[in-house]
């Protein structure tokens, strides 16, 4: 029987999900404000298949930097 801490048991030390490079991007839908059309819409990440997407996380609308 394999046990943790032995060479043969190394595969049991799986990392927790970290949303890191090579991971699937978690799918989501969210309300959004569209500045150009000045309206509130719903955005689904899945609708962006076929395009490159930048998820640009920022701390707060009203801030200094």
């Amino acid at each position, binding site marked *: 029987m394999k046990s943790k801490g032995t060479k043969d048991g190394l595969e049991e030390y799986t990392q927790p*999900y*970290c*949303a*890191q*490079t*090579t*991971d*699937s*991007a*978690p*799918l*989501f839908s*969210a*309300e*959004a*404000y*569209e*500045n*150009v059309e*000045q309206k*509130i*819409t719903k*955005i689904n*990440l*899945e609708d*962006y*298949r*076929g*395009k*490159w*997407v*930048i*998820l*640009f*996380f*920022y*701390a*707060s*609308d*009203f801030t200094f*930097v």
Partner: protein
Amino acid sequence: MAAVAAIYDQLKYLNTEVLAISTDSVYSHKVFTEVSPSASKVQFPLLSDRTHQISKAYRVLNEKTGATFRATIIVDPEGTIVSKLVYPLEVGRNVYEILRLLQALQYSRKTGEGVPANWMSNQPGIVRDPKFIGRI
């Protein structure tokens, strides 16, 4: 935010969409675009992550503040995370690095070449030939 708006045309050219995400409400986003000179220029949607579910899923929630970290995540056309940059709390990002990454990723996929450190889009990549191993 304004810095990304300034390179938006170049991102479009690279078949790239921007989704800006914070834990503010869409109502806050609306007022933000109305009163902030920099936010008034954004051409991309501002998403609301009021429940923190998105920022938690992407592991970029700052639990001390309830806001997200300053993170830039690039997702490829197949839906895989190909880059994740998390910046310091007090330093803004370099949008030219975002452009460079997209150019480099697309160059590498098109040519099969590797892309070295400090590569710029007018430079060649590295051909993956075993005879070059240890010679570069």
